[in-house]
């Protein structure tokens, strides 16, 4: 059956083809929930709202296909009705970012967003089976497909995921769904230093208990762990984990409701909501987390850890001076010294986002390759020009 949004796709493709011929530029707009990410774009709005609707959902195949403009809420409701969910736990960052719009399915994939479960289940890109997109010449492409395994041809799906709309207009996403486990339980260790928390999280994640969340909140000195599974077996597994963690401290077991609230707070970056300052999302080797945290604190900032310490959230005051960069050089410099990782400015004032590259600058060879790829997809550079930098 042809999805209802195919006509809208054709209309958008025609508009893009026309724009390419007349040197117009576009800003791709989904719901606007993540619009302040990256640099502001000057261009005609290209709205995805009409690309809405779920065109296929087969729970027994763990497969869902929907238009890129479909509200995430609608997708999650359809999945929940059949006991499933998006395995990568896309978080709602609207409170953090101060945005109002409705997160859309396309936005989640195009921004490459994932929540706490990313450490076990992977990110949005790991759950994309295929896409439809319009290239910079207005041609509609199918990438990947709707089956679980597909290595036919070059992987265009991965290139589009996380491209922030700079390669093409994604019109449809086929994704892998996951069953919702019967029950969830939380564990909390109290009073640990950053380094001790890192060690405790590593011990938990190295165990066979399938820990699906590991975060450390230095403000309250709470180290949280999450497990999911069969309701009647979860208490036993929690007890196993408590035993395993004994060398790190006495872990307390949280109820499902308590744990649910904690993990929502972590996913939504609640510790920084309502506080002024620039928000950095730093992806790094867990062992390097405490070192970066010290750098952030020296800048007058605060941090917390997710992904077992592989993700460091940092809130750094934005200064009033013209050359203020909210710690960009310090944080990125520290990562370079440590030999890996990257820092993304997720939230910052318009002026800061102009001064500082919101996305970590790439090594010259990778940057050159990126530019060549952009030209392959979008020769005239009509999609979201400048969003990701150069």
């Amino acid at each position, binding site marked *: 059956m042809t999805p209802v949004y195919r006509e809208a796709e054709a209309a958008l493709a025609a508009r893009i083809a026309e724009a390419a011929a007349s040197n117009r530029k576009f800003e791709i707009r989904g719901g606007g929930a993540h619009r302040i990410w990256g640099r502001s774009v000057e261009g005609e709005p290209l709205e995805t709202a009409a690309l809405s609707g779920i065109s296929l959902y087969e729970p027994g*195949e763990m497969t869902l296909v929907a238009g890129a403009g479909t509200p995430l809420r609608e997708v999650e409701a359809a999945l929940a009705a059949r006991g499933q969910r998006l395995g990568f736990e896309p978080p709602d960052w609207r409170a953090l970012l101060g945005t109002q719009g409705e997160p859309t399915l396309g936005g989640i994939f195009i921004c490459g967003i994932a929540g706490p479960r990313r450490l076990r289940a992977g990110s949005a890109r790991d759950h994309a089976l295929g896409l439809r997109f319009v290239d910079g010449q207005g041609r509609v492409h199918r990438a990947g497909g709707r089956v679980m395994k597909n290595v*036919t041809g070059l992987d265009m799906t991965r290139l589009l995921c996380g491209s922030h709309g700079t390669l093409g207009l994604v019109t449809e996403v086929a994704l892998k769904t996951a069953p919702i486990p019967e029950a969830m339980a939380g564990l909390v260790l109290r009073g640990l230093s950053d380094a001790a928390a890192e060690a405790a999280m590593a011990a938990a994640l190295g165990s066979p208990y399938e820990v699906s969340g590991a975060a450390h909140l230095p403000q309250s000195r709470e180290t949280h762990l999450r497990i999911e599974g069969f309701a009647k077996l979860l208490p036993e597994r929690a007890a196993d984990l408590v035993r395993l963690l004994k060398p790190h401290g006495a872990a307390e077991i949280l109820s499902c409701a308590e744990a649910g609230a904690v993990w929502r707070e972590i996913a939504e970056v609640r510790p920084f909501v309502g506080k002024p300052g620039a928000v950095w999302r730093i*992806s790094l080797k867990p062992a390097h987390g405490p070192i970066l945290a010290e750098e952030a604190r020296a800048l007058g900032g605060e941090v917390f850890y997710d992904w077992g310490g592989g993700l460091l959230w940092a809130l750094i005051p934005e200064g009033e001076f013209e050359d203020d960069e909210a710690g960009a050089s310090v944080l990125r410099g520290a990562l370079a010294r440590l030999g*890996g990782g990257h820092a993304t400015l997720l939230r910052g004032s318009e002026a800061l986002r102009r001064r500082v590259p919101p996305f970590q600058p790439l090594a010259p060879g990778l940057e050159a390759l990126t530019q060549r790829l952009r030209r392959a997809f979008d020769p005239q550079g009509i999609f979201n020009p400048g969003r990701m930098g150069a």
Partner: protein
Amino acid sequence: MEQPTPDAAVLARRDEILAGLRRILPPQAVVSDEESLRAYECDALTAYRQIPLAVALPGSAAEAAALMRYCAEEDVPVTPRGAGTSLTGGALPGADCVMIGMARLNQVLKIDPQSRVARVQAGATNLSVSRAAAPEGLFYAPDPSSQLACSIGGNVAMNSGGAHCLKYGVTLNNLLGATLVTPEGEILEIGGEHMDAPGLDLLGAVCGSEGLLGLVTEAILRLTPMPEGARPVLIGFDSAAAAGACVAAIIEAGVVPVALEFMDRPCIVACEAFAKPNYPDCEALLIVEAEGSEAEIQEQLARIEAVAARFQPVALRVSASEAESAAIWAGRKAAFGAMGAMGDYICLDGVTPLSRLAEILTAIAAISERYGLRVSNVFHAGDGNLHPLIVFDANKPGDLEKAEACGAEILKLCVEMDGCLTGEHGVGVEKRELMSAQFAPHELELQMAVKSAFDPEWRMNPGKVFPLAAVRAYREAAE
């Protein structure tokens, strides 16, 4: 099947090129005599053979980069080779190609239990990673059936899967970083020991690119904690349709087993004759494996049994011991050997949505009958990745061509049914010309533009993935 015409100018300069390679590498690392080159003339797709111009075996990323720079300066095409286990001719060289082999780059460099990460040279075998990680209670999850021999570089090139990818994902999902030597000889570090590389997902583009974009010399892999235990259940059905429906029902019940294997009657019969696993006499059987603690295994298997009961199984055997588990797996693991005992075979790798499993199996049976060739099916059912094995006689003139035509028809049917040509083996040489059945000309063109962004001169692994005529047209238009 047509192969790209070798460049006569390169062939004429062979001695000069060999001398150039010997300036970069120690003498024993350049293979040039015909007898030794024979070992490199094909991979596991043995129907196609070609001796390369020379084989160069770098011992470091720096040597690999120097080789690539040299080949760029001399305008010599390059074919990378891991362990040569590709089933699709991914490592088939051209007569004018310098083959860059990864055999000397075979070390697991580092296992970091704290971050659960391994740093591995591209020539290391898949299994060697899991072996090196085992003392830490970790393993590398993607497990293609060639894991004893196949290399990590080859796994990255083909985005290899395996029996356990329903739960743990394929190579793509377990790859954190790669060292890529560009066709110009520049060394690029993509990703690292952290999650999510910045910028466009170049790692995702390189993974599964079949050696078309550059040479991967090193990979950073995610390691997974070993489960406490695992046990299978074997379920027999009186129709393939019932088995297929049971697979979907198991998944829909919220149980995602770690492995879900399907065998049809011809395969069961062949395995029975070959390995005597004492499988039930039935039309189709599933082997479903659960893992976790003993209590979790019991719970999962009980739920799987309850679901299976709805599909009137003719047999249901839950393993209660290591020995019983081994017995259940024995037939499945012998499947390829069993088919090999019946003759030469082509192993296909098409994918269909699970909901169309019964339909495609019926169609495959009809096609095989029409061709008068024996086809049996054994595959990873959870993800719809079919592996029809077409048995033929390589000594009978025309039989290979007949088997290939039969295979092409089956794969085209997979595409028509909303599936794809290849789930985990790659396109290689084998399915190159079928790409037009799955992609429209402009879709292939954009993929070729991506190839050009990485390899503007098209020196990497010629003759793979894209139909030759499409490549010629694209390159002429670009000039």
